[in-house]
């Protein structure tokens, strides 16, 4: 047994999960393995994560001591070895997926919402609710590089939302309370350069950028519409799109805020969760007008495109959250609907989309489905699983 292997085995043995197979079993006999099939499952109630292997469809280890993961998200280092876990309690933890150990941890704020990693893999930014603003850290050491408060034109400190990376060592995010969108540009040698767009609309609750890094879109809770910035234009400007998409109708109560993550940019069409309606909105990416609606089982939370773009999988808000709808993007019809179990919180596709992992929180289980046949391939035990994140995200813009 090599020294490396002993070290790894020891570290995994300490990870306190009884496992039949050690973490290296899926690797070669030389004790080495890659990380392209690894991922992280958030166990939100217990402050732990599972390190999982999508090839083996199995848990390799559990890592504990990550704090409050109520609304946790994860980004990956460029080499896909480290997972940066953003916890609700403001903690940023760096988890080594090969040793299942926490190799760095900083409690950087009181109440965080998510984060992003720069395109060169050197900076990790965290979006905060309390005290607001974003903080940026060295991805290697977790030393703080910048602290950027989010004080809007209204003079108020704002929660930040929808933080994503943009090409060119930039981060883009929204100011929830002040209704603004900012870009922090770290491409220069000195302090980050900020670009601010005020008056984008009321209560931007989430934002994301298209997979090409071009179009940033923020959902607005306070009004019917979304804010759009084409980051390829000079100068950049904010445009209101889908203005009044639900005007004249009484919105339904929203028991969970939709997420604009994993959204479907499918060539010329994008599918977005409507707010307060049991619908997806199909948006034409060429002129940002609505082309049609897709009626769904409930208030959509995630509309995640299967890699390749043909299908979009949709889960729903409480109390209709036991169901997944699968939408064909050619016909914009729901072609399959099924009930994985109570409280389906998240879906993550394998890198090329042959399978999808689904967290079924109240069944304490992660289900793995064949994305083509919908056959249940595996059930993986997990304590109240929520977010699922695979290492292939390291190679994508806006994750």
């Amino acid at each position, binding site marked *: 047994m090599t020294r490396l292997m002993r070290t790894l085995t020891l570290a995994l043995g300490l990870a306190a999960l009884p496992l039949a197979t050690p973490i290296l079993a899926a690797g070669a006999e030389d004790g080495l393995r890659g990380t392209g099939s690894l991922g992280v499952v958030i166990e939100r109630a217990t402050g732990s994560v599972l390190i999982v292997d999508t090839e083996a469809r199995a848990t390799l280890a559990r890592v504990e001591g990550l704090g*409050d993961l*109520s609304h946790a998200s994860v980004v990956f280092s460029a080499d896909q070895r480290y997972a940066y876990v953003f916890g*609700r*309690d403001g903690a940023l933890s760096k988890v080594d997926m090969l040793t299942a150990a926490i190799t760095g941890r900083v409690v950087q704020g009181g*109440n965080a919402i998510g984060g992003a990693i720069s395109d060169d893999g050197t900076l990790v930014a965290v979006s905060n609710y309390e005290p607001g603003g974003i903080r940026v850290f060295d991805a290697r050491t977790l030393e703080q590089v910048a602290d950027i408060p989010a004080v809007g034109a209204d003079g108020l400190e704002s929660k930040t939302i929808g933080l994503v990376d943009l090409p060119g060592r930039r981060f883009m995010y929204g100011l929830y309370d002040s209704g603004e969108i900012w870009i922090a540009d770290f491409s220069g040698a000195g302090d980050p350069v900020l670009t601010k767009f005020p008056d984008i609309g009321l209560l931007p609750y989430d934002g994301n950028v298209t997979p090409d890094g071009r179009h940033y879109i923020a959902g607005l*809770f306070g009004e019917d519409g979304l804010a759009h910035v084409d980051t390829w234009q000079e100068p950049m400007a904010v445009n209101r799109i889908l203005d009044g998409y639900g005007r004249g109708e009484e919105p339904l109560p929203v028991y*969970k*805020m939709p997420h604009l993550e994993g959204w479907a940019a499918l060539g010329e069409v994008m599918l977005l969760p409507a707010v307060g309606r049991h619908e997806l909105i199909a948006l034409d990416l060429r002129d940002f007008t609505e082309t049609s609606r897709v009626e769904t089982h409930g208030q959509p939370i995630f509309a995640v495109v299967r890699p390749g773009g043909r299908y979009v999988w949709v889960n729903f808000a409480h109390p209709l959250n036991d169901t997944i709808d699968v939408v064909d993007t050619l016909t914009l019809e729901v072609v399959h609907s099924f009930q994985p179990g109570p409280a389906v919180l998240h879906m993550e596709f394998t890198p090329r989309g042959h399978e999808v992992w689904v967290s079924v929180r109240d069944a304490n289980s992660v289900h793995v489905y064949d994305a083509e046949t919908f056959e249940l391939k595996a059930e993986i035990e997990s304590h109240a699983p929520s977010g699922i994140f695979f290492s292939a995200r390291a190679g994508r813009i806006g994750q």
Partner: protein
Amino acid sequence: MPRDHLIRFLAGAALAAFTGSAGADPAPDSEKLTHLVIQECGSCHGLTLKGGLGTPLTAEHLEGLDRETITHIILTGIPGTPMPPWAPLMTEADADWIADMLKQGALE
């Protein structure tokens, strides 16, 4: 506010019609409601109720609000904010129970 009362009345009436037990709401299911508060309310207010997109729901933070007001907010929501009305999904007795627990800090 008469309109809110009307909404509550209608919601209550609809629920009563649905359950076929007008005027006799079942006793709150504490286990189910605890799960609801931690998991569903927790999505916005934090699993530890210390706040998120929504304000903290700790006893300390709610000190200035009486039980009736909290019950009212739970059932009717806060217009113009993401706080939704829960009346379609629970009885007034349920909301009272939650308000009590929050005031006592029993779910923190």
